[in-house]
Structures are given as C-alpha cells and as structure tokens.
C-alpha cells in the first residue's frame, strides 16, 4: 500500500467516524416532506400534468361526496390565468354536495394520508386520502399560495371559509384564515387552488378529461369555464344515481400472511372461530371450523395468542378451503344502459353497444368490467380506434401502453369482428371503445393512478367484455354490409344482364325479340333468387 498520495487510502485503524457519529444524524421524515420531494409519484411531474391532476382530484372528491349523500352532482370547474403571469392558474371546483363539517376541513385539505376511504373496502374514486391535499401542497410549493375551501352543510347553517397551508415538516394543516362567509349555494363545497401549470389542448387536456368524466358519469352535470372564459356544459344524461356500493370485509383469499397475523392481533373477537366469521367475508361457522381443523388449531383459541408458526398453518389452511367468492354489492357498475347514454351524449355515431360483466375477483378483491363501444358516424375511418380507460368512473389519460386494459384490447382478435388489426396493435377503424374497471381496490401501477396492473383475472374479464361487444359490432357491420350488398346486387342485375343478351345475339345471330326474351327471362330468374 503506497502512501505517496495525500489521499483517501486508509488503513482500518485510521477511521474516525463511529456509529455514534452516524446515529446523530438519524431523523424522522414526515410523509409530506417525502411527497414534496417525490411529487411525480402523485402525478405532479410537470406543470401540464399538475393542472390535470388537481382538477381530477377535485372532481373525484365532489362526485364521491355527492354520491355518498345521494345527491345528483352539479359540478362547476373554472380555470383562471393569474394576471401578469404565464404559468400560474387558479383552479376552482364547486359542487352541490353535502358539504364538510367545519372541524374536518383542515385535516382533509391540509394533511396528507387523511381520509375516509382508505380503511374501508368499498368502491370509490379517491382511495388514499392523498389527492386533494397533495394538490394543495403542490400549489403552495409552486406559488406560495394557500388552498381556499368554502363549505356549507345545510341551508340553515352559515358557510365556513378556510385558507390553509400544509406544515410539511409535521404533515399538519396550518390555518391562515378561518371565517364565516356568504355562499351562493344552499349546500356544497368550493375549493380554490392556485398553482404553476400549463394549459393545453388535445386528448390529454382538461377538456378531454372532463368530457370523458361526463361519459362515465352520465348522472353528473358538469360545467367547465376555460381560461379564455369559454363555458362548456356537459349536461346530465341520466337521473339515476349509481347504486351505492356496500362496504365489505376482506375476503380470506385476498389476505396476506402478515395482514392475517395483524388481524388476529387486533381483533375484538374472543376466539379464533369468531374472529374468522366476524372479521372476514364469506366465512360461515362451518367454513371457520373447516379452516381451524385443517390448520390443526382449536376454534376456541384466543386469536392474539396464535404464534407465527400457527398463523402460517392457518394461512395455508385458508388456501386449501373452498370459500365462496366475496359479495359483489360492494361494486357499483355504470350499467349497460347508462354507458350507452353517456356515449350518445358526447358522440354522434351510427351504432352503440355495451356490456357489463358479472362481478369477478382477483386476490380476494371483487371487481367488475364494463365496455362501451361506438361505431361509425363522426368517428374517423382511418387510424387506430380510440380507447378510453376508466377506473371507478375516473378517466385514465396517461400510460395507456402500460395498462392491462390496453393490453387486453390488443390481445383481442378484432378481425373476427370486422375490424382491421395489425399484430401487437389496437385495431383500426371508426370505433370509440370505453373500458371501465370498478373495484373496491383498483391495482394501479403507481400512485399517480394512470395504468392498471396486469392481473390475469382482470385481463380475462376485459377480454370477455370486449368480445361480447365485438360480437354485437360484428352483427351490425354484417347487417350493414348485407344491405349494401342487396343494393349492389339489384344494380348488378340491371347492369350486366343486357350484355348476356348482346353476346348471345352476336354469337347465335338472334333477332331483337329473342334478345329481349333473354333479358326478361334472366331478370326474372335472378330477381327471384336474389334473397
């Protein structure tokens, strides 16, 4: 070992930094700090996407709240450009929902990982309690401006207004303003966020997003006022509210060993059998006994006393026991009729069809697939079809190619249904396809919720629904082709029969009367056989 360089070459005895030194630097990190640094994980990669994500989170919250309160949603979205800036916008989202209790407003909008939906197995748009507070945090980060919330829970009560920022170090709201204000509506919530953004046109734009939201939510009435002050109305197409999805307990098949241990530890049931029947879906006393037996455990054991080894046996026993699929009333599909209404409202096509699959299950989570299809009309003949993807009625705009819906659509043989398709690609033709996945737990590939992960069970259901719609489409195309053929045939007969007369006359030296008879006879023969 040379030491000529006055350098970093060290012998083992030279080092001075010890575990004590290192330990001094250890600190807790708040989740807000984490997501501030990693905001691309939440869909705030760039100003364009940030705008869209903010609007998406706002609309999701409004729709969820209205539906839970059984109110037909009226939602107003407005984007204003901040004066004298190029890249700052003020986004306002206002609904006629149930409003939010004053005391809850700060945490809902000013704290990450706070919400009503995370701990429930129930279908909803938002799931994590991150979305809207993250949008507010992004606004605060890029413009320094607080998030403004005004909410009124009843015509009899005043409206409350809050101005909030997130204290990222603590992940807690800091209240800037808290006052009673006038509010135009009898009930509802209005959120204003100012943020650095870029507003652009096209399918991955705010217009596109709202249009697609309106297709998947025909019961909602949405008004959008863009930065140029142009108002677009997406009227309600159906007065039927979605069936309220029920909250369910976890299904044993979807539980991992670690979760099982935790549930045994936390349960309020006094014995194992009761824990199994009370805390899980579809576990009857008979099933619980069978599980216990297979695991070699006593049904009356105290759950919190089950050792890891025993939990493992229990876990294996569950896999070996036949248990009914979870109940599926926790899912609320759009429904075949409403899908068509939603599509018709926005697209002027020749043919519409839809298919809602029966609910199915992946990893113990119930889900349901729906497909809507529009064909012809204003849709362009050339190019690939347009594919709209939805998860719990929320449009997915990005990462199309990473999504199981896209892959399923590509792996369906559309040629069987009268569309052209190159291998490894979506089919081409005048088709708009919408695919909706409804589930208590949508397996996104990332928290920015842009693509659905590849579970074979989901792929299978999507394909079955696509195939069903494909068959309807194929029938329609065939019928259309047949009508065109009929017409062609009729004109064919008129066109070509005279030439048979001419040719036979020329070859056989016939007279004109004979020629006429040939033409008449042939017309008779073919007209008769035409069908």
């Amino acid at each position, binding site marked *: 070992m040379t030491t000529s360089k006055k350098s970093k070459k060290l012998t083992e005895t030279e080092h001075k930094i010890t575990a004590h030194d290192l330990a001094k630097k250890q600190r807790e990190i708040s989740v807000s700090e984490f997501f501030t640094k990693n905001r691309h994980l939440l869909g705030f990669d760039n100003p364009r996407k940030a705008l869209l994500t903010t609007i998406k989170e706002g609309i999701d919250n409004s729709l969820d709240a209205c539906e839970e309160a059984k109110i037909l949603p009226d939602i107003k979205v407005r984007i204003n450009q901040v004066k004298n800036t190029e890249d700052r916008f003020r986004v306002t989202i206002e609904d006629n929902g149930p409003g939010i209790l004053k005391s809850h407003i700060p945490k809902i909008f000013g704290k990450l990982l706070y919400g009503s939906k995370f701990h429930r197995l129930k279908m909803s748009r938002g799931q994590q309690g991150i979305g809207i507070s993250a949008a507010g945090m992004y606004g605060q980060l890029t413009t320094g401006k607080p998030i403004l919330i005004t909410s009124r829970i009843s015509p009899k009560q005043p409206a409350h207004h809050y101005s909030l920022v997130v204290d990222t170090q603590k992940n807690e709201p800091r209240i800037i303003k808290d006052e009673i204000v006038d509010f135009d509506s009898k009930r509802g919530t209005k959120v204003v966020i100012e943020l650095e953004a870029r507003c652009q046109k096209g399918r991955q734009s705010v217009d596109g997003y709202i249009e697609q939201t309106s297709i998947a939510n025909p019961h909602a009435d949405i008004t959008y006022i863009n930065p140029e002050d142009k108002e677009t109305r997406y009227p309600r197409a159906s007065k039927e509210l979605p069936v309220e999805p029920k909250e369910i307990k976890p299904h044993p098949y979807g539980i991992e060993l670690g979760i099982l241990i935790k549930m045994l530890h936390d349960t309020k049931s006094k014995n194992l059998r009761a824990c199994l029947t009370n805390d899980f879906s579809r576990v009857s006393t008979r099933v619980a006994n069978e599980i216990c037996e297979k695991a070699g455990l006593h049904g009356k054991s105290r759950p919190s006393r089950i050792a890891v080894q025993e939990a493992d046996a229990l876990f294996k026993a569950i896999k070996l026991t036949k248990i009914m699929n979870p109940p599926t009333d926790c899912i609320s599909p759009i429904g075949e009729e409403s899908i068509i209404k939603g599509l018709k409202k926005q697209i002027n096509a020749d043919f519409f069809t839809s298919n809602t699959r029966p609910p199915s299950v992946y990893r113990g989570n119930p889900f349901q697939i729906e497909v809507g299809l529009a064909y012809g009309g204003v849709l362009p003949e050339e190019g690939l079809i347009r594919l709209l993807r939805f998860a719990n009625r929320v449009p997915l705009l990005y990462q199309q190619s990473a999504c199981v819906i896209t892959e399923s659509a590509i792996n369906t043989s559309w040629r069987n249904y009268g569309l052209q398709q190159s291998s490894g690609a979506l089919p081409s033709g005048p088709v708009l396809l919408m695919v909706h996945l409804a589930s208590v737990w949508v397996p996104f590939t990332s928290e920015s919720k842009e693509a659905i992960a590849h579970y074979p069970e989901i792929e299978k259901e999507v394909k079955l629904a696509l195939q069903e719609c494909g068959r309807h489409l194929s029938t329609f195309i065939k019928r259309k082709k047949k009508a065109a053929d009929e017409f062609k*045939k009729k004109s*064919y*007969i008129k*066109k*070509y*029969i005279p*030439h*048979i007369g*001419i*040719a*036979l006359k*020329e*070859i*056989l030296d*016939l007279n004109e009367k004979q020629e006429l*008879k*040939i033409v008449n*006879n*042939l017309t*008779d*023969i*073919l007209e008769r*056989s*035409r069908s």
Partner: protein
Amino acid sequence: MTKTLKKIEESASTIHNKITKKQKPSMYFPIRALSNVKYIPKRGFLELIGQKKARTLTVNTVKTFAQTLRVMSLSKELIEKDDIATKREAYYVSKNWDDARFEEQPESDTVIDDVEAMFEVNREQLGFIPEEKGGDVAGKLVVIDKDQETGKQLKIDCTKFGSGAYSIPISTEHLKFETNAKFVLVIETAGMFQRLVKHNYWKKANCILISMGGVPTRACRRFIRRLSEGKKIPVYVFVDGDPYGISNIYRTLKVGSGNAAHINQYFCVPNARYLGITPQDIIDYKLPTHPLKDVDIKRAKDALKNDPFIKQSKEWQKAINQLLKMGVRAEQQALAKHGLNYVIEKYLPQKLKKADSFLP
C-alpha cells in the same frame, strides 16, 4: 379453326336454351391447380385430372358471366375475320362494352384464360395472341409461311441470316417446315446462341439452333413442339446447371407449366432431352461455380417434392439431389473458363457422342 368456332356456338346455344326454359345456365371449367395435374410419361406433358367446376349464373356471377360471353363473341369475330388481338388489345376493345367493360387487364386476362380452359384450346386458336415474342432460329431449317395478302408460299431459309436470325412470330399454327437436320439445339442465353451462330456451329453439327432467351414464350414452345413433332427430330436442351434452368426452363419446355395444365398438350415438347449443364458436368469439366442461394435450394426441394414430372423420374431425382449435395450451380457460359470456344470445340461434341445418356 371452324372446330373452335363450333365449340363457341354450341356453348352459347346450350346457355340460350336454358334461359329460354327459364332455368339458370351454367358454364364448366377445369380446376386449374397443381393438385389437379398429373404426368404420364407416355403422353408427355402435365395434364389435368379430376372434375370441372361449374359457374352457374347468379347475382354474384352475373358480371363475369356476361363478360365471358362477350369475350366468346369477340373470339368468334376474330376467327371469322382471320384477325388477331393481344390480350391488351382485347382489354381495350372491352372499353366499348359500357358496364361490361374490364376495369383492369388482369380481369380480362382471367376471362380469356377461362374461355381457353373451357374449350380446351390454346388462346391463339381463339384469336388472342400473347404480348411478348421470343425465340430466334438459325441453321438447317426452312420455315414455310405464306404472304398474308397473296397467299403465296414463302420459304424462309434459316441458313441465310448470317449473324442475324429468324425471329419466331407470335402465332405459329400455320407454319410448316423442311429440314434434314439431325437435331434441334435449344439454348437458354442469347449470348451462347450468338457465339454458336457466329461460328456457324449449325453447319458443323448439322443442326438447328434455337435461342429461348430465358423461360421460353408460348410461341417459342409451340414452334419447337410443332417442328420436332412434324419432323420427328430430337430436341436437345442446353441451359444453366441450376434449379432454375432445370425446373423452370427445361421442365416448362418439356412438359408444360403446372398452372396452365389445360393447354400443356399444345405447349409441351415431349421429345426434349437435357444436354447440360448437368451436375456431373460441373465435376467433369471443373466448372467455376456459385453457391446455391436459399431460393435455389427452395426451388430444388419444391421440385423434388411437388413436381409431378420430377417426381416420376429417378434420374432427375438423383441429379437434383446431387446438385443439392454439391451446394453449387454453374452457368453454361462458365465453360468460357477453358477458352471462349471450348464449348464448340470440346464440350458439345463430347456430349453429343453420348446423346443416349442425356437426362430425360
């Protein structure tokens, strides 16, 4: 020619009768596909087996039906006037047929092929001639033609063309021949033909030289067939020693082509024998070679497996397998390696001494 005319009229008449009785008329065509072809050495050409397929008049067939009849009518006119029309001209004639006109030439070509197959005649007999010419002749042959106007006999002496040659007309049905040549030498390339003409090889060998210029045209094949059959004179074929020379050029000349089996009886030369270049020649004459390309290998294997003519010939099976094993091919001009006129001075005389052993 009246035989063809009669066929057209009979066919039209049958159709007319059906229509008069208010029944759907039909036409019948042999199925034209390699699977419907056989080779019987005694008869000497690839010919059709199996049944015909009917085209009954329906809404779907009415257009083709009408066009077929109009082409039959055109053919009748051509025969009656002793005129000819190329397929391209026939296509243009149809432009006067209003709705029954052909939009593209492949459509009219198909209908002409149909009519040809239906009557089992070659299209020259229907008055339709091919677009392309091909085939030059020099040597010990007098072709007897006639002046179109006066009808006077014309004797064309193919020894009198110097470095030039007699060019075979598109239609050869009317030609007659006088010759005392010992054989006909049919040559693949124009360059080799020119060399043999330049050195008056036909005089030395007492033969007739015919240049095919690649795959022989119908006119060229028909000319050789009529000459060899009429004059009972053997035909020796001198082509490149490769799968193309063997299974495309030679096979087509000798037994006709697979997808035109309905007319092979007119366009085959059962007398033909294969002089060279044989795979054995490549070894014996130490010829420069090129490796077989993938397409060559595919062609050779195809021939071994699917060609009814090759399949029935043990000698050809052996020769082609030998070629595949050697993995190389040689052109007739490769003989130039030994001197430009080696072909005249050595190769041809040596080969002709053993004409009995030529490949069939």
